[in-house]
Every structure is written in C-alpha cells, then in structure tokens.
C-alpha cells in the first residue's frame, strides 16, 4: 500500500511540474512586452530596464521559471493589474466555487446512482426507459442553457428564487436560496453521466458469478443487489466521478457566469476579458493543481475500495 501511494504521489508531482511549465511557457507566448504592461505603459528605456530587473525579465527563462515556481510554492502568485495579490484574490473567491461544486456533486450522486440502480434492476421495463431517456436529455442539454431557462421560469415568471448573486454561508437560508438553481444546473449533466455508468456496471455485475452464488445461497434480492452488486459497481463509478472533475471545473466557470456568482469560475472569465496575465497565470495554475490533487485523492479512494488495484494494477 505504501509503495502504491508513493508511486501515485510521484506521478502526480511529475504531472504538476509539467503542467506548471506549460502554464509558464503559455503566458510567455503571449504577444507583447510584459515590461511595458508592468511598468504602467511607461516606455522610457531606463524605467523598462528597471522593471525587467525587478521582475527578473532580464534573466534566462529557466531562472525565471525557478523564481516564479519558488514564489508560487510560498503562496505568492504576484500582483494583478490593480496591484492586488493574485493569491489573495483566488483564496477569497475559491470557497464559493467549492461550495457550489460540492452541492452539485452531492445532488448528482444522490440522484444519479439510485436512478442507475433502478434502471439496471428493472431493465427493459417502463421505469428503465424513463430513466434512460431522461439521462439522454440531461446529457444533451447544455447546462448554461438550462440555467437561462431556470432563470426565466423560477426567477422572472414565478419569483420563487433569486435570479443571480451569492450570499455568504453566515446566512444559511439565503445562501441556499441563491445556490439552488446553480447547483441543480451543474448537477444535471453529472447525474446523467453517473446514471448511465451505474446502469451499465450494475448490468455487468448482476450477470457475474458471485451474484448468482449469492442468489443460490438464498439471500434475499435486496441483499444481493445492495450488498453485492451495488458495492462492486461503485468501484467503476468512482473512476468516472474522477474523470468528470475537469467537466465540473468547466461547469463551475459557466454556471457562475450565468448566475452572477463572484467565485473562482467567474474570476477566470474576468481575467481573460481584462487580459490580466498574472491573474490568468495564477488562475490556470490553481485550476490545474486542484485537478491533479483531487484526482490523486480519487485514486487513493479507488484503491481503498478495490484492493485488487493495489496489487495487480500497480503497474499502470
């Protein structure tokens, strides 16, 4: 187990390092002289030289990278166009997005997994078709459009829920009211994917020998389904949840933009619209790092659920 964990952590670190190099080079590939932007559009050669020296722009790229990543590891991502700390901006915006992502994930799991189980157990019957068709629609409806429709129905027409904005957790009721629509919107596609995955892995586990053995032992159907089939199907579904993380990050960006929530996702779009490169660099780095870390966590949970991976699958 220790060796397995070490290998996984090592691989994650390699990915992080390569990702950070990609981000660094990407920002350097942006046309235009950063010294002019940093020096507040002052084109005096002496000022430019001073700016270049101050920000290490006169050093070779590897030195610049080492300097940048060293500061980043110490929580310093530089300052944006308004001279605010990028790291501070990200840290203040992040909790909102994490709450949204958490609520959506919870909702998607609570709906998607039982729906998948029902569809698999009642394969070929009306409830299976209903669930499967709903999931297909859920997959094909883009969540930003669903968001617009929700605003039209529940905010503009019915006045049930606020159309946009965010209230902090210190007012729990108002907080939930503002997050109901965004998290349902974000959860819809995810629930559909989880349902489809759960249905197909349930169908294959229900046909497995150990399920037949369990039935032959005389266990009642409920125990067979929940203790044997569902538990084993959850293993594949965990991987799928891990693979959906990228989609979740993209979804957060879109959902926050539609519902006017000032979280990390909206910050990403703002950064591009303002062409604020230090901010873009910081946001992209944090998004990639977050993805790698959560994926590592998923891998670890996966190996805890399925001991076979630790032994045989350790090669990959």
């Amino acid at each position: 187990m220790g060796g397995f964990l070490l290998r996984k952590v090592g691989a994650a670190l390699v990915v992080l390092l390569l990702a950070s190099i990609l981000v660094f080079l990407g920002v350097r590939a942006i046309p235009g002289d950063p010294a002019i932007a940093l020096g507040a559009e002052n084109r005096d050669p002496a000022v430019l030289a001073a700016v270049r020296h101050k920000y290490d722009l006169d050093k070779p790229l590897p030195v610049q990278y080492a300097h940048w990543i060293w500061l980043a590891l110490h929580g310093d991502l530089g300052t944006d166009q308004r001279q605010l700390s990028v790291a501070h901006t990200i840290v203040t915006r992040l909790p909102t997005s994490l709450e949204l992502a958490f609520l959506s994930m919870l909702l998607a799991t609570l709906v998607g997994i039982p729906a998948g189980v029902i569809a698999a157990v009642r394969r070929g019957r009306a409830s299976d078709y209903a669930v499967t068709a709903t999931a297909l629609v859920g997959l094909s409806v883009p969540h930003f459009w669903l968001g617009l429709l929700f605003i039209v129905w529940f905010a503009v027409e019915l006045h049930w829920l606020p159309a946009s904005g965010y209230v902090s957790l210190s007012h729990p009721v108002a907080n939930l009211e503002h997050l109901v629509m965004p998290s349902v919107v974000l959860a819809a596609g995810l629930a559909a994917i989880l349902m489809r995955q759960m249905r197909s892995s349930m169908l294959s586990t229900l046909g497995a020998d150990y399920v037949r053995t369990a039935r032959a032992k005389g266990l009642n159907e409920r125990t067979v389904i929940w203790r044997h089939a569902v538990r084993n199907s959850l293993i594949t579904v965990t991987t799928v949840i891990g693979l959906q993380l990228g989609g979740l990050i993209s979804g957060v960006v879109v959902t926050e933009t539609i519902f006017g929530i000032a979280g990390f996702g909206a910050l990403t779009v703002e950064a591009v619209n303002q062409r604020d490169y230090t901010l873009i660099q910081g946001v992209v780095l944090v998004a990639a790092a977050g993805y790698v870390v959560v994926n590592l966590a998923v891998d670890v949970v996966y190996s805890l659920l399925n001991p076979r991976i630790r032994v045989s699958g350790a090669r990959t």
Partner: protein
Amino acid sequence: MTAVDTTVLVSPRARRRMLLRKRFLRRPMAVAGLVVVVVFVLAAVLAPVIAPYSAGATDFNALLSHSSSKHLLGTDELGRDELSRLIWGARASIQAGFFATMLAMVVAVPIGMIAGYYRGWVDTVIARVTDVLLAFPFIILAVGLAAILGPSLTNATIALGVGAVPGLIRIARGEALALREEDFVPAAIANGANDLTIIFRHILPNMASTLIVQATLTIPGAIIGEAVLSFLGLGVQPPTPSWGVMLQDAQSYLSQAPRLAVYPGLAIVLASLAFNVLGDGLRDILDPRTTR
C-alpha cells in the same frame, strides 16, 4: 435456393455492408438521428440559399417582434430574423463539431496506438503527458488560448480538439493493446511487415468502427463546447451568428423576450441529441459484442 446462390456471389465485404445497413435500418432512433444530422449539415452548407434573410439584416420596424409571416420565429433586439440567424449559426456549430473532432482524432489516434502497441516506457511517458493535458479542462485551455491568440472560432475549435485528445488517446491505446495480441500480428510479422505497417495497415483498420463511434460521440460535446465558449465571449465574436452568441444576446432580454433564449438552446439540444443517438446506434450495430 436462388437466395443462397446470390449471397455466395457477393463479396464478403459487400455482404457485411448489406448486413450493417439492414441492422441500422432496424433502429428507428438511430435513423432519426441520422436524418436530423443530415438536416443540420445541409442547413449549415446551404445557409445562403435557404435562410430567408442574411444573418445581419436588421428590420427596425420589428424589434423583438413575435413570430409572424414575415419573421417565422420573430426577431431579436436589433430586428434581426431569428430563424435566419439560427440557420447561419448552424455553420459555427457544425464547423466546430467536425474540425475539433478531426483534430483530436489526427493527434490522438497515432499516439494512442503507439502507446498500446509498444507498451513499456513509451506507454508510461504518453500516459503522463495525457495526465498533464487532462489537468487542463477544455474551458481552462480555451481561456489560455484566447489569452494567447485572441478569442475566435478557430481558437475555440483548437481548444475543443485538444480537450478531446486525452480521452481518445486512452481509447486508441486500449484498442491497440487488445489488437496487438490478435493472430494477424504475428502473421504480418512473418510476412516481413515492419511496425509502421502493422500499426497503420493492420491495427488501425481493425479499430475503425470504434473510432467512428467515438467520433460521432465527440462531435456533440464539441458542438455544446462551441456554444459555451461563444456564450462566454471566448469563441465566435458578434455580430457573427452562433447559437452561443445568440444566447448571450438573449440574456439581456430574458423578461421581455424569453423565447430568444429558447430557440438557440433547442437547436443545440436537437443537434447534440441527434449525434448522440446516432453514435449509440452505430455502436450497437458495429460492436460485435452486442450483435443480435
């Protein structure tokens, strides 16, 4: 008796094609999907001929008007014909859908096949690089590209294509990993074939059906992705019509004209549903494991 004779005369390849066509026609959903896909592609290609108005034509006597004989689906805030803009907008969607998928295929399939065929350290290196790509969700990639190259349909398409690469690498790798164990590989080696010949002449054709299905299922993702990026201002730039741009415009008029937010969305859903249903149908008929 005569039936047996004719089947013997037809080549195995033609017989397989006939069988596939028969199986496909037995699936009404897949056929419906194909019909809708063809309609969308035709609308995109023939937009100048079939659209009642040009995409930018304004009618200041009919701002935000309801549907009428002049404007079948009404007009937007500048008096532009909604139906015409939907038809012109299909171009951006179809373009992004097809080109992003092609780009992803051209990049991912050879890499995936090499990883699966050679295994060992080549496979490990490719797996790490794939992980790095996966760490950048397509929106983040698009954000980066828009920052570097400026927002446009081409750059959004590139971002969507690159975003689809890691998943396709994994699929091509898995297929190659299984196919290299088939008997035709040692047979080809005995015939003196080199690795390149084996990979491209023997392994690639055998995974073609999987790739066709994956392509059909990648396109709807790219269509939705294009709409999302254009909606955020990272893709097609107004006044060029795109379903995402139209939804972005509609956002300011949700209380006066909610229908402006409905039609482009319906177009996106219909297009992506059609490709998804078609892809599911193709998988059913091409996958030997589900053959009935």
